[in-house]
């Protein structure tokens, strides 16, 4: 896995549920056929009401019209990120759009499990209200080994909560890769 994650921030509010991350009408596309997979990038975060996307100003599109990938790399959220349905399409869509990490105050359980076990995005937690301290478009740098977040735009560094036991699953690339690495299941 990458030791440093660097890129632009996309800031969101609290309770970003899975219907906002990927609206239910788009759940019909295949998650394995490449032509259909890219549609998950196109529609990622398309359920967020426009004025609540790209805080603090709002009305900043996550995906440019006609594009399948986002210019943003790290999502900054508030409490209860990923609440709602069990759809694994949600962290999958964010990954397809180019998101590598989310930093939020807390996560809903199923979204958190899906992000980790599917190896899609790293779900960092922090006790700071980062979505009120960071602006959409700020250049951010996460140091994975030291659990720090540096805002290169404002020159402020924050501490992220350690990932704990799930770090090894994330490092392996998901639950199946981890299970093989730990000899919990047969090698391919």
């Amino acid at each position, binding site marked *: 896995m990458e030791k440093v994650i660097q890129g632009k921030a996309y800031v969101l509010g609290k309770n970003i549920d899975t219907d906002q991350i990927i609206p*239910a009408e788009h759940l019909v596309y295949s998650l394995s056929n490449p032509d259909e997979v890219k549609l998950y990038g196109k529609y990622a975060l398309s359920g967020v009401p426009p004025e609540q996307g790209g805080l603090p100003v709002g009305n900043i599109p996550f995906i440019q019209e006609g594009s399948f990938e986002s210019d943003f790399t790290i999502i900054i959220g508030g409490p209860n990120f990923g609440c709602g*349905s069990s759809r694994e399409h949600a962290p999958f869509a964010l990954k397809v759009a180019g998101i590598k990490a989310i930093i939020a105050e807390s996560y809903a*359980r199923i979204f958190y499990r899906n992000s980790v076990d599917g190896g899609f995005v790293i779900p960092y937690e922090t006790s700071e209200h980062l979505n009120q301290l960071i602006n959409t478009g700020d250049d951010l740098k996460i140091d994975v080994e030291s659990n720090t977040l540096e805002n290169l735009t404002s020159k402020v560094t924050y501490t992220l909560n350690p990932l704990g036991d799930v770090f090894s699953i994330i490092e392996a690339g998901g639950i199946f890769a981890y299970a093989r690495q730990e000899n919990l299941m047969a090698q391919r």
Partner: protein
Amino acid sequence: MAQTITQKILSKAANRTFVDAGESVWLNVDILLTHDVCGPPTFDIFKEEFGSEAKVWDPKKIVVLPDHYIFTANEHAHRNIDLLRQFAQEQGLENYYDVGTDRYKGVCHVALAEEGFNLPGTVLFGTDSHTCTSGAFGMFGSGIGNTDAAFILGTGKLWEKVPESMKFTFDGPMPEYLTAKDLILQILGDITTDGATYRAMEFDGEAIFSLPMEERMTLTNMAIEAGGMNGIIAADEVTERYVRAKSSKPYELFISDPDAKYHSKYSYDVRKLEPVVAQPHSPDNRATVRSVQGTKITKSYIGSCTGGKLTDFVMAAKILKGQKVAVTTNIVPATVKVALDLECERYDGQTLKQIFEDAGCSIALPSCAACLGGPADTVGRSVDNDVVVSTTNRNFPGRMGSKHAGVYLASPLTAAASAITGKLTDPRDFL
């Protein structure tokens, strides 16, 4: 060591005598549930990880109930049903309920109960967040994603962190105007949408045990709306009577020890509670119906795993008998069985179906339908600036279709009373 009912069930599934809240344990899974939205990607991951010729761990323990996008012209949705059918054939899954046949059931959480898959003391995982519904049967039920489900398909096991439990006790006899939906919306307003994250929500008290199974299912169904891992109600004679009528399989009854440890305890006297709604755009945005009475609505929707069971329609019929609706009112039975029951079950001399038709409601075919918006041609889907009063479970922006619409979550009594006036209306005005 004292344990809660959730701990006891997980102890059994982990082949242990005691599990402590906070420890991660490997569980033997009794039933894995999936449907048309999450089944196909789950099967893809299973084949990718275990091999294209791999066999599932136990074909009898996998239940596949297509229910989300059934009555639509969307070709991708049809393709996903084909993928379910193909996998069920390859693997010999006897519990596959195919669309377009007389085996089709409808909404999975209600069908699981009707078909006798809910057994006290067992462990159910499902690729749907409302899998917690089955906790009404004194069992553990929880939602998971595709990757975790694929892991279960191959191994029959899953790791889970044993949850702390929160206890919600409802004392007193249930007043006629109050429903399980009002109780869970009351709780949500108190603890908010992440108030039970990673925890078990245990329901107890005289009012709870006076409820029929369908109403108990409404309570456990919405545990996920507070972030709960599971919702649970100990099985009693009502549960046993329901289960025995559906299944001859063995089951085991568990109850919480009196000295079990809880994260927190909440007590309510149902005689002091009122009909409530969750206002847009969050299930915890509670208000008494009286305080928002008169708010204009454009649609009323009675359906889903939460509010599309026979008991929900009996309640709605009580209000709608002899009345006319003022706004589009969609009646969406959760399952084929519920739809058939609408034609037989009578209230005050008329079948529920007649009551709804006479009132001017439209009755749709059983599926998840517009609870989660769905493809553009889904019946009841919200459009533009719709204001919907709905017996469903979620009202985040865009949940029922249009992200400019507002959804008020309510009981079937409130949804029916509001349909008649075209405004949010306390059901006591019609009872």
